[in-house]
């Protein structure tokens, strides 16, 4: 997922369009809703957004913080540039591990939606209110993806 606009502060001259993460924050969560009929069709998506807010705080997190602090060199000043930040995210260094929880969450949300692009046969989220009313829509793919990601991170 691109983090559009996550640039060094000096380039912040005008607002950027919403990224996918911003969109999940807003259009799935806010705005006018017609009536109960429409709410039903949104159930699957709402489950997703609630799920996406889970951030894991645990012993694991503490150990990662400790690791991050131990490798810090206080004599070095100045923030890392954007390229390094991005590299760190993909390279899987200590920073990546510390940020694991939130990164995993974002990737998972992107995952659930991209799944549609890749596999049209899979039972998945649809904006079809009939399937949710009959109770067929269950967040199985999200759950599966959650547990596997947690193990990885």
């Amino acid at each position, binding site marked *: 997922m691109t983090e559009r606009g996550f640039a060094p*502060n000096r380039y912040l001259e005008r607002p950027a369009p919403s990224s996918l993460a911003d969109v999940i*924050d*807003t259009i799935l969560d806010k705005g006018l809703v017609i*009536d109960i009929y429409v709410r039903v069709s949104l159930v699957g998506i709402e489950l997703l957004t609630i799920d996406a807010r889970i*951030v894991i705080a645990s012993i694991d997190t503490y150990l990662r913080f400790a690791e991050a602090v131990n490798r810090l060199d*206080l004599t070095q000043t100045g923030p890392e540039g954007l390229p390094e*930040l991005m590299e760190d995210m993909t390279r899987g260094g200590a920073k990546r591990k*510390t*940020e694991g929880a939130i990164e995993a969450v974002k990737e998972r949300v992107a995952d659930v939606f991209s799944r549609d692009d890749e596999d049209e046969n899979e039972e998945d989220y649809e904006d*079809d209110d009939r399937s949710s009313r009959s109770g067929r829509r269950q967040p199985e793919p999200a759950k599966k993806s959650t547990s596997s990601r947690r193990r990885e991170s």
Partner: protein
Amino acid sequence: MALHVYGVVSAATPLPGVLRGRREAPVRLVVHSDLAAVVSEVDADARIRRDDLLAHARVLESLVEASTVLPMRFGVIVETDEAVVRNVLEPGESGLIALLHSFDGLIQLTVKAYHDQDQALKHLLRERSDLRVLRDQTGKGPAFYPAQLRLGEAIAAGLETLVSSDAAMLHDQLSGIAERIVLGDVTGQNQVLNAALLVQRSARTRTDQAIARLSRTLPDRLRLRYIGPQPPYSFIDGELAGDPVWA
């Protein structure tokens, strides 16, 4: 085919020349007296892809550049033009007109602040000798496991305090810029603030400059993202808490 409803505008709203919605379908208006719903054709059974979410946001963000827009939450699918009028515009008429009026000339701009984790940790260590002491007591290996945990826990608590104080500082700075501010959920351990600003469209340049100035004066550990213009998502949500206005 059915219609995806993006939002509601006043009937006199001009659409930008070529406005494409979900799956590149052309966006048009369904008009009923003074109101219009912004719609495009969509397969009612279509799966939701990330492009669909982005398209919904892009359509609304294009319109709000020049017009007042009440955003629909993603997922409002209505069968026909008649059903749009019958289910959305007619029953909601007075409420929607009042909302359009109250947001006339206003846009939402969103400011999200994040900690650069390394910089935030460095700041903590520099400020707090007790954390440096804890760090010096740790080492490699299982024998140091309890010490590592103590350090990590203290760091996590310290970061949390730093997030609160930085959020309060930013909120304070931003409140001079906007007509109203709504703080949204902060969604990750590095996010410090998620603030929706309601500002006059005519004050956009002044707001851009103020945000740019603010971002230049922030300590290294803080990064801003500045998003918009958006329809007033965060402000409508509050007003419609509970039942929809016309339910």
